[in-house]
């Protein structure tokens, strides 16, 4: 308990009065125009106030202090109630905000000054008593009296409507807005709670509503690109807005709200628009619009997923259309023409198709690069799309074969940029599943009698394939190319050999190509009985070959040979370009004019199938070099053949084609067998490495390992595992039947 003496009371009253006067003065200064000048003068007298409080409080601590403390609070409250609220009541809208900002500034000044006067309290009274600091009191008073009814109820909405006005295109006072929101921040006393709850949240909600309205209008009125352009504009605007006059954390929230309304909500509807959606943009090659779409949707979570799906669908659709087109074309052509003509046209169509695939592939790659910023999501979509239609057979022809046809075509063609073309082909090739099948067909097609200088092209293609699929894949093909390279040197040596050994000369120009077994497809060798002239050639060459290399055996593949024969017909002498089989057959007629089917067959030593083919090509096809009795369409075993001396043609030199046996089935079977071995090898290799491995893991590792060459059928892998268990390469784990162990 403290005693007051009258002195103290007087002093206190004095100080209080002084304080109130000073306060009034301060207030009026603030109302006036010459604030800074008047404040400067005012300042000079403040030391009196301060020392007054000081002396008062120092002497009589508790009572005086608490009194001074509450006086302080009272003064502030009076100011708020009296001046501040009054002035705000009169204004509205933007004027209101301006007033608010000014009043707040004044208020802060007042709090600052009073805190100065009451500074003693700050240091001596407040810390020990766990009561709010002077500045806190200031804020609390303001919050308590002004916040709810003014800030939240009026100021916030007023600011928000200003923002909307700006969105609609009007210019607003941005600094004003910034100042208002700063009030919220300052009122928070360090935490952003008030700002976020009462300013940010309603503002964000408003933004959401605003853009939701706009979006609904735009989505029905605008095309997709138009919409996207508008969206981009809005987002740029909102970002600027956020940066300019809001707290920095708000910018992100605002932008993401807007993105949500403009992009996420309507994404599906927008992109799937009939005439202007994503697919039509892809069709019409609208690169800029697509790039914008990518840019904008990459901002939102999962925004690109739908785009990649639509992209994939589009590509698949285009690809399948090409496939269908080719399929229809092929079936219609088959109906129209006979076989050999159809074959030629068929090839044309196939080449065209692959060419179109490549075009499509390039176009899509272009999109991924230019519009989709090389995003791996889109590469994958592209790959998946191509895998769908690149692996569809056109009627009976598998895509692997189609590609082989195409490569063949390109290799033979001059005047094009082989390097680029091969690059494109190989890129397309990576989407084909049955790569090993392609390799087989490709090999089978490398015809031997077209040896122009396409070596370097072959090598170029090989190099590119090797790059993408590995050396193992191309090893056989490389063997083939090597043989062709050696061929020229060998031929030259052979010619020299003949020149130097005159008795070795067979009297006929002979060219031989030696193929290394294994590198080339296995051609059937048959025991054709050669006419003596040809037999001599073979002997000579064998002699030559033996002189060069030891321990090598030659098997002759006559089915692939060609002969140039001079035919002395009555009208005129002609040069005939024939297959060796055909030549052998014709030469028989040098010794007899008329022969039966069986005689010919016996003399030639070929199978019925081959004899049939040969005789058909010579008597029933375009060039009737032999007369057939009876003159029917097909060959039968009872037919008789005779030399047609009256045969002639417009040209001097003709080529008599011999249709090849369809090797296709054999190729496919061969590949299937190779695959079985490949899977076995893969499984053993993987198990040897891991020693113990679970079933699923083994399956997926096999898939991955073999995937570069072909897509293994999961049943095939299982069968091979089963087989390997039987052959005791693997066993099941005793405890877990889903785990395999390698048996060393």
């Amino acid at each position, binding site marked *: 308990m403290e005693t007051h003496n009258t002195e103290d009371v007087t002093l206190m009253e004095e100080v209080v009065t002084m304080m109130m006067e000073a306060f009034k003065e301060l207030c009026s200064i603030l109302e006036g125009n010459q604030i800074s000048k008047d404040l400067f003068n005012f300042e000079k007298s403040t030391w009196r106030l301060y020392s007054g409080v000081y002396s008062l409080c120092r002497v009589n601590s508790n009572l005086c202090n608490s009194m001074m403390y509450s006086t302080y609070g009272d003064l502030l409250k009076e100011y708020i109630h009296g001046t501040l609220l009054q002035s705000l009541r009169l204004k509205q809208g933007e004027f209101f905000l301006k007033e608010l900002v000014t009043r707040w500034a004044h208020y802060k000044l007042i709090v600052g000054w009073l805190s100065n006067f009451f500074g003693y309290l700050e240091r001596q009274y407040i810390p020990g008593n766990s009561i709010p600091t002077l500045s806190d009191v200031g804020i609390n008073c303001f919050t308590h009296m002004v916040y709810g009814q003014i800030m939240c109820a009026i100021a916030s909405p007023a600011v928000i409507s200003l923002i909307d006005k700006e969105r609609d295109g009007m210019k607003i006072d941005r600094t004003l807005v910034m100042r208002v929101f700063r009030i919220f921040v300052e009122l928070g006393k360090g935490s952003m709670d008030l700002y976020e709850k009462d300013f940010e949240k309603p503002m964000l909600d408003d933004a959401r509503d605003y853009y939701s309205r706009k979006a609904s209008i735009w989505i029905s009125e605008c095309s997709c690109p138009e919409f996207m352009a508008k969206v981009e504009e809005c987002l740029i605007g909102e970002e600027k807005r956020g940066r300019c006059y809001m707290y920095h954390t708000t910018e992100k929230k605002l932008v993401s709200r807007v993105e949500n309304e403009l992009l996420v909500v309507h994404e599906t509807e927008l992109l799937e628009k009939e005439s202007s959606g994503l697919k039509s943009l892809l069709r019409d090659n609208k690169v800029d619009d697509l790039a914008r779409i990518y840019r904008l949707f990459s901002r939102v979570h999962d925004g690109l997923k739908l785009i990649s799906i639509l992209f994939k669908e589009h590509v698949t659709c285009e690809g399948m259309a090409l496939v269908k087109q080719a399929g229809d074309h092929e079936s219609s052509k088959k109906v129209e023409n006979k076989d050999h003509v159809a074959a030629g046209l068929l090839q044309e169509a196939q080449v065209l198709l692959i060419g179109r695939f490549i075009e499509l592939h390039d176009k899509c790659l272009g999109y991924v690069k230019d519009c989709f910023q090389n995003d791996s999501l889109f590469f994958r979509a592209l790959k998946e799309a191509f895998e769908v239609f690149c692996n569809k057979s056109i009627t009976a022809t598998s895509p692997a074969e189609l590609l082989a046809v195409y490569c063949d075509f390109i290799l033979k063609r001059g005047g094009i940029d082989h390097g680029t073309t091969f690059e494109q082909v190989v890129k397309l090739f990576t989407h084909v599943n049955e790569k090993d099948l392609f390799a087989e067909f490709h090999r089978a097609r490398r015809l031997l009698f077209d040896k122009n200088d396409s070596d370097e092209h072959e090598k170029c293609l090989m190099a590119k394939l090797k790059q993408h699929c590995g050396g193992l894949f191309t090893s056989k093909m490389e063997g083939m190319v090597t043989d062709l390279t050696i061929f020229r040197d060998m031929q030259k040596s052979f010619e020299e050999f003949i020149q130097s050994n005159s008795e070795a000369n067979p009297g006929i120009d002979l060219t031989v190509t030696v193929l290394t077994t294994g590198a080339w497809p296995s051609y059937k060798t048959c025991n054709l009985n050669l006419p003596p002239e040809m037999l001599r050639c073979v002997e000579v060459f064998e002699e030559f070959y033996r002189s060069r290399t030891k321990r090598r055996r030659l098997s002759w593949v006559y089915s692939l040979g060609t002969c140039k024969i001079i035919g002395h017909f009555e009208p005129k002498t002609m040069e005939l370009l024939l297959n060796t089989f055909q030549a052998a057959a014709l030469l028989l007629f040098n010794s007899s004019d008329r022969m039966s089917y069986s005689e010919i067959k016996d003399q030639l030593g070929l199978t019925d199938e081959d004899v049939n083919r040969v005789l058909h090509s010579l008597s029933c096809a375009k060039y009737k070099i032999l007369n057939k009795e009876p003159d029917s369409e097909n060959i039968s075993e009872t037919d008789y053949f005779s030399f047609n001396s009256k045969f002639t043609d417009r040209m001097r030199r003709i080529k008599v084609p011999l249709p090849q046996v369809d090797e296709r089935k054999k190729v496919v079977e061969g590949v299937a067998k190779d695959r079985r071995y490949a899977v076995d090898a893969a499984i053993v290799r993987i198990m040897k490495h891991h020693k113990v491995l679970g079933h*699923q893991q083994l399956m997926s590792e096999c898939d991955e390992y073999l995937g570069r060459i072909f897509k293994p059928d999961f049943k095939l892998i299982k069968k091979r*595992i*089963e087989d390997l268990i*039987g052959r*005791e390469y693997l066993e099941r784990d005793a405890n877990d039947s889903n785990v395999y162990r390698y048996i060393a």
Partner: protein
Amino acid sequence: MRRSTRKSGSAAAPVSSSPGVSDLFRSATSKAVSKEMERVDQLFHTYVDKSLGMVGPEGIESFCSEIGVHHTDVRILMLAWKMKAEKQGYFTLEEWRRGLMALHADTIIKIKKRMPDLEREVTRPTNFLDFYAYSFRYCLTEKQKNIDVESACALLTVVLGFRFPLQVEKFTEYLNRQQDYKVINMDQWMSFLRFCNEINFPSLDNYDADLAWPLILDNFVEWMREQ
């Protein structure tokens, strides 16, 4: 069989050095044992094929008729298992002894009596797995590792027919129809038992082809589902 080596500690029951009751007992039991073995051997000799030195197929047939069991009955297979017989259709003296001594059956009557016990023993889960595996190996000839489909079906019917009649019926039907497999290997054989034990039949709802089931079973399930 592994032998564990012991460096210390006693390895066997203590042997008393003085003669007495235990000795008597021992000699009594060993006498009984040797008596039993004698009878077992005698029995063996009634069926033995002299030229082979072991009981052959005819011997087995007469043996079976005396016991009153058909020679294709599963119980003969069980007996073979007990004997650990190696070659189908033949029992050596050692095998004969092993089986019958384990059963404590030295006469035909006793053998007959012990059959139900034997059956019970075999069908205990721990033993059945071993028996099942044994039956496959038993049917193999010298160089073989696999059994042809027809024999496998017959064997399955004998060995599993009473336990899993539905599965066996369907599976044998499938095996006879399909063309892919001409032989069955041990792994497929064992997997079938596991299949019967684990998979709901005939719903097949808990069969997962992505697991390590042999392909033959995948195909079987597929075929079943098509039915």
